[in-house]
């Protein structure tokens, strides 16, 4: 995906929000967008999402599937969480929401009307709808996604971001909380004074991989702690089925 001299302003005589932004984004990249309030982060994210068209310049090579989770989920809608997610899945032409609701701890609340959910739970609905569908050829845009999430969901979301990137998707996250610090291969972009500048990179050239480990339940906590100590992101969940026999004998990294 490439941004070529992208400029944007809301009205013909209004102030420029962004000017001459050039950016190349590779599949599998995680971009962390920072900047003070009102600097134009949300406008930048909406341009990337294709919701706004540049006033000048062009954005090419945008992935086919775009997921956008707003900073504040619009909970004032007359649907239950399940009905809303089903409708958004139909709009995307996919069926169901896989294990996303489970992973973010939303499953017990699916039957609740959106308006009755807490802010954090409603925010999870916004995240799940953005994540619907296959991870490949995906542009995932998350505006302040960690705000208001419980600790478990924050860890899970960081994992999901890493998984989308590992599958070749592009993830753009506006983040004040620093929850992405553990995600390697991320690039920091700073929006300020109509410019978008690349900041310190994590390890930009390092690709991500997901390693699945099946262990005895009693050993899981200790194993997870050791892996976390080594700087990896770890998620522990009950094994639904044993890994296929064939996978264990393959040369690939699936253990």
């Amino acid at each position, binding site marked *: 995906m490439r941004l070529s001299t992208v400029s944007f302003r809301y009205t013909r005589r209004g102030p420029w929000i962004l000017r001459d932004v050039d950016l190349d984004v590779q599949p599998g990249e995680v971009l962390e967008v920072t900047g003070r309030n009102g600097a134009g982060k949300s406008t930048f994210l909406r341009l990337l*999402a*294709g919701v*706004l068209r540049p006033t000048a310049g062009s954005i090419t090579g945008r992935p086919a599937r775009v997921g*956008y989770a707003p900073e504040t989920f619009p909970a004032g809608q007359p649907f239950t969480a399940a009905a809303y997610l089903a409708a958004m899945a*139909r*709009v995307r*032409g996919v069926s169901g929401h896989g294990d996303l609701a489970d992973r973010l701890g939303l499953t017990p609340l699916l039957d609740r009307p959106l308006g009755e959910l807490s802010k954090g739970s409603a925010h999870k609905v916004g995240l799940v709808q953005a994540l619907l569908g296959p991870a490949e050829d995906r542009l995932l*845009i998350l505006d302040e996604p960690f705000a208001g999430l419980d600790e478990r969901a924050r860890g899970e979301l960081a994992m999901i971001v890493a998984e989308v990137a590992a599958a070749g998707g592009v993830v753009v996250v506006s983040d004040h909380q620093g929850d992405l610090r553990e995600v390697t291969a991320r690039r920091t972009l700073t929006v300020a004074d109509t410019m978008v500048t690349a900041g310190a990179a994590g390890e930009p050239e390092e690709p991500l991989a997901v390693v699945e480990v099946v262990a005895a339940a009693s050993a899981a906590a200790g194993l997870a702690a050791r892996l976390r100590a080594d700087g990896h992101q770890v998620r522990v969940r009950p094994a639904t089925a044993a890994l296929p026999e064939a996978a264990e004998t393959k040369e690939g990294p699936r253990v």
Partner: protein
Amino acid sequence: MTVALIRFKLAAYTRSHRLLQPLFVLVLMLMIFYAVRAPADDAAGSYANSAGLLIVVFAWAARGLLDTEPDAQRVVSMAAAGGPRREITAGLGACAAVNTGLAALAVVVPLLIGFQGVPPAAMIAQGVLLHLLAVATGIALGALSSRPIMPSPAASMPALFGGFAALLLVSYTPVGAVLIPIMRWMRAANDGTLGADLPLLALPTLLWSAAGLVAYALLRRTRP
């Protein structure tokens, strides 16, 4: 995807009960129009009056539908549906669906209880066409006064009702022939020349309605 988004918008609109407001006004207006049963051979005149005055109801319904969703949901829907164009098309498609239903009521109810007999088929067809023209005009007016274009209700409500009043008044003047010729619909129907005049009356109506919708789509480019 666009069809799924139309269904989503219609579901949100009906569940929000916003449809009841224009529906009640429509029923009230029909009760006034047909308080005295019209002669069957004067059906075209009654239909023309009904279509001309119901533009404001169609505009109100369109504005209500487009304003049902929270602003952030439109952005979410644009991403999910694959671009702003689909979201805008779905919004207007949902308006067309609702207003076609309201227009069907305005055509069918008088056939059941509003006329003294069964009008000639040609007059019923003219009634259908006039109400469809009113739907097109109403959707354009409603879209241009919807929240993305006019965020303040203090501006959008006067714009909707004032816009309709202006359309009606201007249609009395000679300029009205090339704008939305609402008064000319009514006169032609009462004079019995509607059949011959309809193409000339429909053309400016459709062109201006299309221009209004194009303006709406262009304005939405910076107002997601």
